[in-house]
Each structure stands twice: as structure tokens, then as C-alpha cells.
């Protein structure tokens, strides 16, 4: 089963995603696919906090921050993968290098990579972020990222069996409610 969970920050997405991944998984085949590449102390602290939150859940960890399709060969075919998050993955691929350039092909690549990965793994729970509902005019750079993330989310929504959004801890299904 493939599941896409999105929503605003601190609305309960990650906890639900962990629970559903745990429920879908076979013993010993539960994976946390960590996509964030830590860059500073703040990131390190976040990684530690997330590790603590997952302790005791039985997650194996794969740290793949980019080029997900290149890891298909080492993917556990019986595995249930929690991909947290699509947002970080796109950011790694889109803003790589120190030049400040944007890789405009990144959204297409990330969507293709995740689709290929989905074909290999038995279950995947994707976590993304709803960054599309605020009253602001962004610079072109930020808006390309928002448009890119929306593209990836929409492609994932097509291939996922379940699509849901979280608001204040409540789940709202757009697809596949009966499967959960």
C-alpha cells in the first residue's frame, strides 16, 4: 500500500505516519527513510529528537538524502518505508551546491525517483507539507520550490492508494479512507 500524508506543521502527520507504517509492516521490515541532510546544530538536534521519538518502534534507518532511485537495488522488497519528508528531499535536490542555483528539473526527478522506489518497496508512507495556503507574495526562487513540491505531491497522489491531510490532529481523507 502507498500512502501520502500532508498538512501544516505540527498537526500530527508524523505520528500518524509512524503508526500507519508500523501497522502495515512485517516484523523486521519497518524502515525510516531519513531524507534530511543535517547542516547545523539545529538540524542535529532535530535528528536526535526524531530518533528519540522513534526509539522502541522497531525502525531500521536508511539515510538517503537524494537520488532515491539509485537505492532501488538495496531496497527491502518486503519493507514498509516511512519517507519523512518529501519536502526535505526536494529541497536537497533543488538547492544543491553552494552556487545558489536552482535545479529546475529536480521536481520531475524526485517524482520519478519516488515512483520507481514505490514500485520496489511493498509499502511506502510519504510525508509532505502543505505550504500552499498563506497570504504572501514570494520571490521567484521560493515560488519555484512551492510549485515544484506541489508537482511532486500531485504525482504521488496519483500513485498512492490513500491520500490524506492533517489539521489539528484530525485526518481528512481525499482518497482511500476505506483502506485505513
Amino acid at each position: 500500500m502507498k500512502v501520502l500524508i500532508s498538512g501544516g506543521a505540527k498537526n500530527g502527520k508524523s505520528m500518524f505516519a509512524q503508526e500507519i507504517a508500523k501497522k502495515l509492516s512485517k516484523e523486521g521490515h519497518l524502515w525510516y527513510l531519513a531524507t534530511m541532510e543535517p547542516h547545523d546544530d539545529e538540524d542535529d538536534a532535530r535528528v536526535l529528537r526524531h530518533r528519540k521519538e522513534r526509539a522502541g518502534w522497531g525502525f531500521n534507518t536508511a539515510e538517503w538524502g537524494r537520488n532515491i532511485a539509485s537505492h532501488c537495488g538495496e531496497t527491502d522488497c518486503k519493507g514498509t518505508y516511512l519517507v519523512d519528508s518529501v519536502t526535505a528531499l526536494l529541497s536537497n535536490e533543488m538547492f544543491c551546491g553552494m552556487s545558489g542555483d536552482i535545479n529546475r528539473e529536480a521536481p520531475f526527478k524526485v517524482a520519478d525517483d519516488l515512483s520507481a522506489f514505490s514500485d520496489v518497496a511493498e509499502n511506502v508512507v510519504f510525508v509532505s507539507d502543505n505550504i500552499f495556503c498563506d497570504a504572501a507574495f514570494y520571490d521567484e526562487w521560493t515560488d519555484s520550490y512551492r510549485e515544484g513540491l506541489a508537482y511532486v505531491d500531485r504525482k504521488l497522489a496519483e500513485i498512492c492508494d490513500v491520500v490524506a491531510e492533517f489539521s489539528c490532529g484530525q485526518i481528512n481523507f481525499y482518497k482511500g479512507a476505506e483502506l485505513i
Partner: protein
Amino acid sequence: MELIIGGAFQGKTEFAKENFGIEDDDIFVCKKDEAPDFSKKCIAHIERFSFWCVEHGYEPSEYFFEHTENTDEKIIISDDISCGVVPVNKTERAWREANGRLLIKLSKESEHVTRIFCGLSQRLK
């Protein structure tokens, strides 16, 4: 009237085209620095019209109905701009509120209100 809302880039216009048989020529895309023309069947980015109203001292929920004929036949599309941090900029704060008032009024008048998320639709009304 049909009201379609959702976050930026979620597939609202595609939804309108697929479900209401409209084409690009039927769509008026509002601009934040130009007076609108509401004669076309589908009006997209109406939140930009709200911004134009705020900058020109109009109330969008009044202006729209005063300047639009056959409102019951319109298909209106708006970005949901209601969920971010309260904008620091005064005009943007007023814009967010004015668009909220407009959408509440449009939603009352609409036969259906649909929210689009990741290309998928959900009927709110």
C-alpha cells in the same frame, strides 16, 4: 455559481476544465494591479482581485456583485490564502481578510464549493 478553492498549484484550474467543460478562452485570470473584467464564464485567481480592491479602497465582496452579471453561472477559483502567519504588511493583512469575506459570500451563493488538494477534489458544499 461554482466555487473552487485550494492551495497554490494544487490543480484547481485543471479541475474546472475537466468538470465544467471550459477552455482557456473562457477563463479570466485576475491581476493584482489591474481592474477586473468579470464577463467570462470562469474567473481564476480571484484572490488577486481582492488585493486590487484593497489597494484601491473597494470591498471585494461588494464590488464583485455590483460589477458582475449572471453571477449564478460563474465558476470562481481562488487560492486559499487563509492559513499562513498573519502578514506583517498592513495591505497584505487587509487583503487576507477581504478575500476571506469575499469567499464566505461567494460560498453562500454557490451551488457547490469544492476544495482541491494534490489534484484531488473534496466537496465542502
